[in-house]
């Protein structure tokens, strides 16, 4: 009997029958996350209902030396929740309770399976919302957001998950339940845990900051002949000292796809559209809107639309938010890339992407968070044409090289996961990666928590030099001698 089988038998000590999945057909439904071209059928799936159950499962994994992977809604785009065939997949979908809403302290306590949007929906009537807004917010879980340090269109002004999570209860890789609070003295383990992609343990309870709904929101759609015009407008807006809640840009190919998919009705003939959202007190937003309007016209916008209602705002966003899925309408297959460049390098990097398109004969649709230089190039290909997948993969990798050359990052919000671990050593030195893995070794010396993610090569943790207490076990058992 394999180790995993022995472990699986003991799961009944912790979970009832319907919380353990071993049926091969049902296991297969968990074989990937949002990055569907990496697949692995998990050895066993558990659906725990509490932190205690997760801790007990993790302790079993620790005892048997079996790897485990946590999964929320499975919407991640870097394969962070890719299961292990020899391991346990811990799915948090049954932990969807909002435990506490504390308006006077502007915080909410939720279980990890609660969806991002559910928090906002629970507090909207009281004039609050949860600020980080990844595009998948209707279904993605807070536990997953914590693992990936998720951002979203509005993180330009409001920051990321790490800026909005105040406390986390987690199960450490050796099965202990620990609480990390922003108020606690000591190392900022809360900050180190958020964005660690499930490699330091599993969040079981998350306290988030609630933000006040802005007094007013103005959403502007500006259409330009070309991407350069849009780029000029973005630079001028930032240069004018305005920090919009969001500035998003789409190029002609992305617009064409969105139009085909959701008929978003963006201005005809636009080579680029810019979505600028301003929020805050009326008086500030009115002033900023006047500036943005002027700047866009000066930069060559041929049409500017302003959303006057929530419906009109939703219509403007519909095209942008559907963009990823929409390219399915104009291409049989595509790769969603997620790179970051300093915003001022955008024109050069976009020109570089153009050259790659020509060189490889591969089309790239560009959608990006222009305000913070986070590019989401969609690399289009036909998987029925032999070799085109590899070509697309090559273009996708070369785009990351461009980002690194310009002082940027290989991922702005999708995470490293399995997808980009091989690019990590292009961005970081061996010393950098080894140092990061000291944190891993502190939390997870056996390397059982989501192994194979983030780092290209795992660091062997070994023992901590100099702090050995008592006689080494090998010496004690007579297997080694110490001199």
């Amino acid at each position: 009997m394999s180790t995993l089988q022995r472990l699986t038998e003991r799961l009944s000590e912790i979970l009832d029958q319907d919380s353990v999945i071993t049926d091969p057909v049902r296991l297969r439904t968990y074989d990937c996350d949002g990055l569907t071209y990496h697949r692995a059928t998990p050895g066993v799936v558990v659906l725990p209902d509490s932190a205690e159950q997760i801790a007990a499962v993790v302790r079993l994994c620790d005892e048997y030396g079996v790897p485990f992977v946590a999964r929320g809604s499975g919407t991640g785009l870097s394969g962070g929740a890719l299961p292990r065939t020899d391991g346990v997949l811990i799915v948090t979908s049954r932990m969807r309770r909002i435990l506490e809403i504390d308006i006077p302290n502007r915080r909410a306590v939720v279980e990890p399976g609660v969806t991002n949007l559910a928090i906002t929906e629970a507090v909207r009537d009281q004039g609050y919302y949860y600020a980080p807004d990844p595009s998948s917010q209707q279904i993605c879980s807070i536990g997953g957001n914590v693992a990936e340090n998720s951002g979203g269109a509005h993180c330009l002004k409001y920051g990321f998950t790490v800026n909005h999570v105040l406390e986390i209860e987690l199960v450490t890789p050796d099965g202990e339940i620990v609480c990390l609070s922003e108020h606690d003295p000591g190392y900022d383990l809360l900050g180190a845990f958020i964005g660690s992609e499930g490699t330091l343990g599993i969040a079981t309870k998350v306290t988030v900051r609630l933000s006040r709904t802005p007094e007013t929101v103005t959403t502007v759609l500006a259409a330009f002949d070309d991407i350069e015009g849009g780029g000029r407008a973005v630079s001028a807006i930032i240069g004018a000292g305005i920090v919009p809640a969001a500035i998003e840009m789409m190029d002609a190919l992305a617009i064409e796809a969105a139009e085909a998919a959701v008929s978003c009705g963006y201005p005809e003939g636009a080579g680029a559209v810019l979505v600028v959202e301003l929020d805050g007190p009326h008086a500030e937003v009115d002033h900023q809107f006047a500036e943005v309007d002027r700047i866009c016209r000066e930069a060559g916008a041929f049409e500017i639309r302003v959303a006057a209602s929530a419906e009109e705002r939703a219509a403007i966003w519909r095209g942008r938010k559907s963009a990823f899925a929409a390219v399915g309408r104009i291409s049989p297959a595509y790769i969603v890339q997620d790179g970051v460049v300093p915003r001022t390098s955008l024109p050069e990097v976009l020109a570089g992407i153009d050259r790659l398109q020509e060189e490889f004969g591969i089309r790239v649709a560009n959608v990006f968070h222009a305000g913070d230089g986070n590019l989401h190039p969609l690399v289009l290909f036909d998987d029925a044409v032999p070799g085109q997948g590899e070509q697309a993969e090559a273009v996708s990798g070369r785009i990351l090289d461009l980002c690194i050359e310009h002082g940027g990052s290989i991922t702005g919000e999708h995470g490293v996961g399995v997808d980009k671990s091989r690019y990590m050593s292009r961005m970081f030195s061996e010393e950098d990666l080894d140092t990061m893995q000291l944190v891993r070794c502190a939390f997870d010396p056996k390397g059982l928590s989501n192994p194979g993610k983030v780092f290209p090569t795992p660091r062997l943790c070994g023992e901590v030099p100099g702090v050995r207490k008592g006689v080494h076990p090998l010496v004690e058992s007579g297997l080694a001698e110490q001199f």
Partner: protein
Amino acid sequence: MSADEDLAGCGTTVRPATDADAVAGVPPRWVALPESTQDVAAVMRVAAAHGLAVVAAGAGTMLHWGPPPERCDLVIDTCCLNEVLEHASGDLVARVQAGVTAESLTQVLAARGQRLSVDAPAEGATVGGMLAAGSAGPLRFRYGTSRDMLIGVTVVLADGTVAKSGGKVVKNVAGYDLGKLFTGSYGTLGIITEAAFRLHPLPADSRWITAVVAEPGQSLLESLAASPLEPAAIEIDRPGPREPVTVSVLVEGVAAAERAKAVQDLMGMDAAVAEKPPAWWARLPGEEILLSARGLPAAVTGTLRVIAAQAERLGLAPHVRGSAGAGDLLVGLPPESDPAQVAAFVTAVREETAATGGRLVALALPEAVGVDFWGPVGALGLMRRVKERFDPERRMAPGRFVGGL
């Protein structure tokens, strides 16, 4: 070779220490004056070879914070790491060496209409010191603390390893965020040599709306914090337990004047609007004896009452100041306060505020007070493991941090 010889030959200026170089009363033997990250690495390799205990020092404005180091052989003075490496104004990003002072950075950034949205705790404070101490001032209500503005960091570990994480783009989730780990670590994991920050435009206009009240109602503080007028800071100042409390709210932006009027309405007609901050704004309320009382925003008035009652009981005169909006208060006591009474005060306030989830941590205390600086520390086991991995020989500011780390 001796440590003296190796330090002399490591390519960095190293001078014998004087009494003025003492760290919280502990005199080092040498002071190194590196000019680059590589210099720091070279010095640290020598320190590792000779088992030297090392403390990093900036301007020294917060060097007396925390318990004294158990050992201190070598001080790494960051005064010559004083270059602003890059101000990419179009990207709203700056990269600096750790010894750059907040003032000089402010000047450089202001020349192009930008700022780092973190208040310096004292004149002369360096960026590295502010990060190591995890400092934050009034702006923390809107922008968070220094860790929230930090987007990239270069550190040198105890063995001389140079490591960086993050980068110079705001949006970046590649790899672990060592910047978070090192911010507020009191130099016990390694030495921060460079940092990259996200910046904000300088506000076009600012207004401070200030009112004096006998005791602020929690409902007033909450309505200010919840106001869609977007205050950047909500501060209180109480010079003594029987004194009234000054509440001051900052609004920033083109329409600051207009918004200030609306804040004034919220606060009542006694509130005055000014274009300059009150004199006490963003200044620490104490020096030798300084405590931090953090907790939930809704517990602020309760904490004020606990502090006043314990001060009366023990005959102390605490000066309370801080962010009512963020639930983060500082308590200063006169240096001549009786050490035994100070110890009793720390213990009592710590216990009473814990009931509402509050934490009382001592930032600075004279040795005679002899009370635990930290109070209960969650996840100390994990922290110990982190320290053991980064500094297995306990040579980085040993004993200066939680749990004796």
